[in-house]
């Protein structure tokens, strides 16, 4: 395995120094010439290493096509699997899962700052649908292992969503495309640049006639400037944008409101009353993390805060809608009608909405909004048409919210881009000769009515830059592996215009290139690297002499100290368009990005596939959401296949009866049914794009009928109700003010007294760790699950194993429905290990593999575990997870780099569970002991706590009475889960407090 040495590692297996090299370089003359010409590496240890240089590699490829793969430059997957398979079989012969012997040698010269075992954090940003999410990425010996939010970044404030957490797995995905492919055959990048530079010259001579560039939404100043440079030399070049999960109506509405490119953002910290019109603002969009922070801060019921009230008028249940104080199910196509009715009621000059009379609850909402002028906000749905966005803005204007809770930033997206539809028509009309696709995957994700597959064949040259060899690559002449955002330089902007220079944390694993590099070729700078492109752009932007300081500072902070976007204050009223008449009773099909897979970009990500989708708890499949009434009327049972037909095109997906979905509405999600995703994401689920109509992309009329065929689904929560028990305790705010101790007020829930407990409490003299989860602010977004998975090397088990009840998440989010089936209350409850003071698991383990630490943590000793699983049986919270098979992937080498070296990768047959991120506690204990002090409150953050966008999770030292967690546990709202079992959990919960409108009661 010597050829798989990670050259970033300080430890080089000694075999590689002792053994003769496997492949000898024979053509020394060539090599000598290469080296003499200056193209070769400047320093090399052996000739073989020199031969590993890309130049020689390419030379050999040209001489002997197909041979270069045998040069020991990394190992390809097949041979890796072969060797691993063989060695595993041999290892199995000797003993089960025995680790291979490794000899190590230390550095001769220690690189600066790199101390094995001490991680470094680098600031960067992840562009999600073009907008930056500021990150701090943990790096162990130059391997990025964990993503955290950057507290200094305005779009992160220290937290992230699920995709940022999952992105680290995409980096190490073994299915990533690893070579340049020319019409499906392995080629080289220099061959590409050679040919493509020539082509680019020809294009430039024709002033860019026939050149089309297709990207996703981007805000990168460097990329935009490169495009500007390109259109200067090639005035006829056209720039198209394909971003299936971003509704172009949002940008166009903003443009209408502001008169120019703009971004409508909200300041929920000032909002007393929030009304969403089918908006999923807590998880969708560039500012969702910020909104979550602001929103949750205003849900506090202690400390004199005026708790906000949130009305969700929505169709498909969103993460936000699940914790709304009032949720009104309205069909997606009827949202505009409700918006207009609301607008009218608030005195906006809106045309009459067709159809139904205003719903009964509207008046109460109107009055509440009127009582909170300047302190309220109406948020239009991301996937609603322009009319809803304009109406919402008109309402906000009428309420005086503009400038208060609604802030319009100058837009950061480039002007003058074209849509996918335009690209298709240009292709079909023969206007596109050269199509350069930088990222998106339109062959998969373009609406089926566009027939992108046919259109793309009409281009004479298609160049695809993509991380995966996917559906679009299959239709391209050239496929260039794209660098992951952690592998390349770039820059991007947050919703408010804050710019982050994205710095790479690792060399491209497979020689990936960035969009900047491809554009550089077109501009005539084929040798320009991403770094040079970004830096040279910033040199033009910051002309002062201390550029280097500026550069260093920007990289260090994760944001560039230049002015943010300006705030717009458009005046003048907006004429709301007349709504087209529509049949309110027609069956509608709602299209949404999948909650965990998005538009399909994440479909090869096992973590995100296995992450239970917040509302359905489904994994590994997309479902057709069916309302309870429709299910009853059509006799559709859960997990029955449902046929959804739009304009004669049909998909089949398993039904999920979704309480709270309005009758006559069926929701399907994108991201599945792929063929070019990889071994994880291929051939699962249905492809919603295949029935999508480009003219009505997010809601359309159609039919849905059950087939009666049962489909095997993998769901992590079978029982949806609390079954008469009270794991989640909730009260209205009036009850709360009467009984601040409502979770423990009733006789049944009175906490046990010390007298009732036979044993004296253990005196903890040092630390006494504890956690509190505030159910009042938890939205169930599930970021904690992914963060925990990434931090603790939690294995992915696959659909079959999830269906068998063997998923491995250390923290899960339970979701309970309560009340009316057609519009139930929803409660989310994250459940990590409770670290019970009197842990039932500890007494039953025969080998003392789970023990209590002197800091109160219930510790799991993997080495000692023999796997009786008795602990899990005796755990009333069922938080323990068992390795029924060898679930951890010990074979895929690319995943080795991803793992947190501070956490054991568990083997087969052992139990595992939440450890309160003991590795983080330990790291801080060592650090603070060296400094001669104790750990300060907030110094140790568990992974779930750190990522939580609503700050629902608090962890700390209970012995420190000033610590936040101790103060929260002293609140009357605090309660223990299953307190009557006298397990004395250290993870406690804060009761949920609703803030309903009195006028809507009863």
């Amino acid at each position: 395995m010597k050829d798989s040495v990670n050259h970033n590692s300080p430890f080089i297996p000694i075999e590689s120094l002792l053994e003769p090299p496997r492949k000898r370089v024979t053509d020394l003359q060539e090599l000598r010439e290469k080296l003499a010409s200056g193209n070769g590496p400047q320093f090399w240890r052996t000739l073989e290493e020199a031969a590993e240089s890309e130049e020689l590699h390419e030379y050999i490829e040209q001489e002997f096509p197909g041979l270069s793969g045998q040069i020991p430059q990394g190992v390809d997957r097949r041979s890796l699997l072969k060797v691993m398979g063989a060695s595993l079989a041999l290892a199995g012969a000797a003993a089960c899962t025995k680790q291979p012997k490794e000899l190590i040698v230390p550095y001769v010269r220690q690189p600066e700052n790199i101390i094995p075992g001490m991680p470094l954090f680098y600031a960067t940003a992840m562009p999600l649908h073009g907008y930056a999410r500021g990150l701090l990425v943990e790096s162990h010996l130059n391997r990025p292992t964990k993503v955290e939010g950057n507290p200094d970044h305005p779009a992160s404030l220290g937290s992230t969503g699920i995709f940022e957490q999952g992105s680290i797995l995409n980096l190490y995905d073994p299915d990533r495309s690893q070579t340049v492919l020319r019409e499906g055959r392995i080629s080289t990048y220099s061959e590409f640049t050679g040919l493509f530079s020539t082509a680019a010259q020809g294009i430039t001579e024709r002033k860019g006639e026939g050149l089309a560039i297709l990207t996703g939404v981007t805000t990168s100043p460097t990329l935009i400037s490169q495009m500007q440079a390109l259109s200067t030399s090639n005035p006829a070049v056209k720039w198209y944008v394909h971003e299936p999960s971003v509704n172009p109506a949002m940008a166009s509405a903003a443009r209408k409101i502001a008169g120019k490119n703009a971004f409508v953002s909200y300041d929920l910290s000032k909002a007393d009353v929030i009304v969403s019109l089918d908006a999923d603002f807590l998880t969708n969009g560039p500012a969702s993390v910020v909104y979550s922070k602001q929103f949750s801060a205003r849900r506090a019921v202690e400390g004199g805060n005026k708790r906000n009230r949130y009305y969700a008028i929505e169709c498909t249940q969103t993460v936000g809608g699940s914790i709304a104080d009032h949720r009104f199910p309205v069909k997606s196509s009827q949202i505009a009608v409700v918006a207009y009715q609301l607008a009218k009621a608030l005195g906006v000059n809106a045309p009459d909405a067709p159809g139904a009379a205003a719903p009964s609850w509207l008046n109460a909402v109107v009055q509440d909004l009127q009582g909170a002028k300047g302190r309220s906000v109406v948020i239009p749905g991301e996937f609603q048409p322009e009319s809803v966005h304009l109406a919402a803005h008109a309402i906000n204007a009428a309420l005086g919210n503009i400038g208060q809770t609604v802030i319009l930033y100058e837009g950061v997206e480039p002007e003058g881009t074209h849509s996918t539809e335009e690209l298709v028509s240009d292709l079909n009309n023969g206007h596109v000769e050269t199509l350069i696709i930088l990222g998106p995957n339109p062959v998969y994700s373009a609406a089926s009515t566009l027939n992108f597959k046919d259109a793309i064949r009409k281009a004479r040259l298609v160049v695809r830059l993509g991380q995966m060899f996917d559906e679009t690559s299959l239709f391209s002449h050239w496929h260039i592996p794209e660098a992951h955002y952690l592998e390349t330089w770039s820059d991007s902007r947050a919703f408010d215009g804050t710019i982050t220079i994205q710095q790479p944390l690792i060399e491209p694993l497979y020689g990936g290139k960035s969009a900047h590099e491809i554009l550089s070729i077109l501009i005539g700078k084929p040798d320009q690297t991403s770094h040079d492109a970004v830096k040279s752009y910033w040199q033009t932007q910051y002309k002062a002499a201390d550029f280097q300081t500026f550069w260093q500072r920007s990289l260090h902070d994760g944001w560039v100290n230049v002015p943010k976007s300006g705030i717009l204050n458009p005046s003048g009223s907006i004429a709301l368009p007349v709504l087209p008449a529509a049949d309110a009773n027609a069956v509608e099909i709602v299209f949404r990005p999948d909650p965990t897979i998005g538009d399909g970009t994440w479909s090869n990500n096992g973590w995100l596939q296995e992450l239970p989708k917040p509302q359905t708890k489904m994994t590994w499949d997309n479902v057709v959401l069916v309302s309870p009434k429709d299910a009853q009327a059509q006799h559709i049972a859960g997990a029955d296949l449902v046929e959804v037909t739009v304009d004669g095109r049909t998909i089949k997906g398993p039904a999920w009866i979704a309480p709270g979905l309005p009758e006559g509405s069926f929701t399907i999600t994108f991201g599945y049914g792929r063929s070019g995703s990889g071994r994880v994401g291929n051939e699962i689920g249905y492809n919603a794009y295949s029935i999508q109509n480009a003219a009505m992309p997010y809601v359309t009329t159609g039919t849905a009928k059950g087939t009666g065929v049962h489909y095997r689904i993998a769901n992590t929560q079978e029982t949806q109700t609390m079954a008469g028990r009270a794991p989640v305790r909730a009260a209205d705010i009036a009850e709360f003010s009467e009984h601040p101790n409502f979770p423990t007020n009733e006789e049944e829930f009175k906490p046990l007294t010390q007298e009732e407990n036979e044993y004296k409490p253990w005196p903890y003299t040092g630390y006494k760790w504890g956690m509190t989860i505030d159910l009042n602010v938890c939205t169930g977004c599930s970021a904690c699950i992914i963060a925990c998975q990434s931090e603790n090397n939690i294995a992915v088990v696959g659909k079959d194993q999830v269906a068998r009840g063997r998923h491995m998440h250390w923290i899960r989010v339970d979701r309970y429905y309560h009340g009316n089936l057609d519009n139930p209350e929803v409660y989310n409850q994250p459940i990590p290990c409770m670290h019970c003071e009197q842990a039932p698991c500890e007494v039953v383990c025969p080998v003392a593999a789970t023990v209590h630490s002197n800091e109160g943590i219930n510790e799991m000793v993997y080495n000692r575990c023999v796997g009786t699983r008795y602990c899990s049986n005796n755990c009333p919270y069922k938080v323990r997870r068992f390795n029924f098979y060898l679930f951890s992937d010990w074979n895929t080498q690319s995943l080795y780099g991803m793992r947190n070296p501070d956490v054991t990768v568990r083997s087969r047959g052992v139990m595992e569970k939440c450890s309160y991120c003991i590795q983080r506690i330990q790291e801080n204990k060592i650090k603070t002991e060296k400094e001669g002090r104790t750990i300060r409150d907030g110094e140790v953050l568990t992974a779930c706590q750190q990522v939580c966008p609503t700050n629902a999770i608090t962890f700390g030292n209970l012995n420190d009475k000033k610590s936040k967690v101790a103060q929260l546990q002293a609140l009357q709202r605090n309660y223990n889960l299953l307190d009557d079992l006298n397990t004395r959990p250290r993870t406690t919960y804060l009761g949920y407090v609703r803030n309903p409108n009195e006028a809507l009661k009863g």
Partner: protein
Amino acid sequence: MANTENYIPTVEVVDPGPDRILGPGHDYETVTKRIAGVAYQPFKNSPKKWLVGAFISFVFVNIFMVAVSYLFLRGVGIWGINIPVAWGFAIINFVWWIGIGHAGTLISAILFLLKQDWRQSISRFSEAMTLFAVACAGMFPILHLGRPWLAYWLIPYPNSMWLWPQPRSPLEWDVFAVSTYATTSVVFWYVGLIPDLAAMRDAAPHLWQKRAYAILALGWRNSAIHWHRYQKAYLLLAGLATPLVLSVHTIVSFDFAIAQLPGWHTTIFPPYFVAGAVYSGFAMVLTLMIPLRRWYNMKDLVTLRHIDAASKLMLGVGLIVAYGYGMEAFFSWYSGDKYESFMYWNRITGPYGWSYAMLISCNIVIPQALWFERVRHNIVAVWLISIVINIGMWLERFVIVVTSLHRDFLPSSWGKYVGTQWDWATYAGTIGFFMLLIFLFVRTLPSISIFELREVVHHDKQLEPLVEETI
């Protein structure tokens, strides 16, 4: 070869009915010949039924080997267990086999101490059955481990890790309970065999048989001192084994009762488990003994008297078990505990309601037929009922393990459990293993105690004049 003819029964085989434990016309020699003759038979003269039975058992042993190999290769994931139902067939089968393993020691030790003379012709066989059942049972806790190669960590031994097992865990108590029971059962069984082995040695038709039995007989010379010491040792062992009959299943029940799971956390478990074990043990003895006495023409050695007594005992113990079920149900209501009452309601009406209904009919309803003498004296009926009880007792463990685990405290983590083909293969495999051992035992060792039956002959002889006098 020729010698074996001597062992063809010379006495007419007659079942003497429900009052006598030995058929008429037997003397010391006929008893010996009859019992030893089965073991002396050359292999090729084995009855067809024996060959077929042994072959089928052997096939199942092979299925077992395949299932276990695959288990070791892949892990316990091949079974149906999951979270929340982390224990499945392995534990159900373990408890089931251990239960079956109760009859032998009970018959040999407790009935010996209670001077129940009818035990003599079935004690040896039941003891062997006990051993084989315990062997099957003993495999399961090891197979069930996630890392079976580390099973020895449950044994307290001085080690460089300075680690001892965790004494508060009932699984640790199991290690001692089961291993003690197994050891004592082996010793008890073997000690009881010694005089018979000597008799086999003395009467063996072939030299190699003589030698083999001689080694096993440990130099028994039938001297009075031998007999004196033997009887003392046997009495002591019986005294030692008696509390073990109670303790093993009590401790096995602690695996459940100590846990706080609704449906497990019950004080009734120890007596109820012991009763259940005796119940299933007797059922298994009857299940095996009835065909055996038919195939080997031993109706005069294992008589209706035995079957009748065992049936009555079964009926009585079955009522204790029924009382256990009743108390479980009563306390789930009387405790007022919402988890307990839900558990019982779910047990009856939940997704595994069928198993509870079957359990009640198998273990309580159907065996009530044994109240009737006509049923007890109908060998086929008794045999069928014994099989029904075996199934019922397996279901009892299934109900306890699965229905309690699958829905415990938090509704969010409720799940379901279905045994996979590998679960069934392992279970069926151990039955095959058990049967093969029984078949081999019957063919190589005296399956009925020779010397004890001779005592019966002696006893009868002394009684006869008395009986005649009374008449």
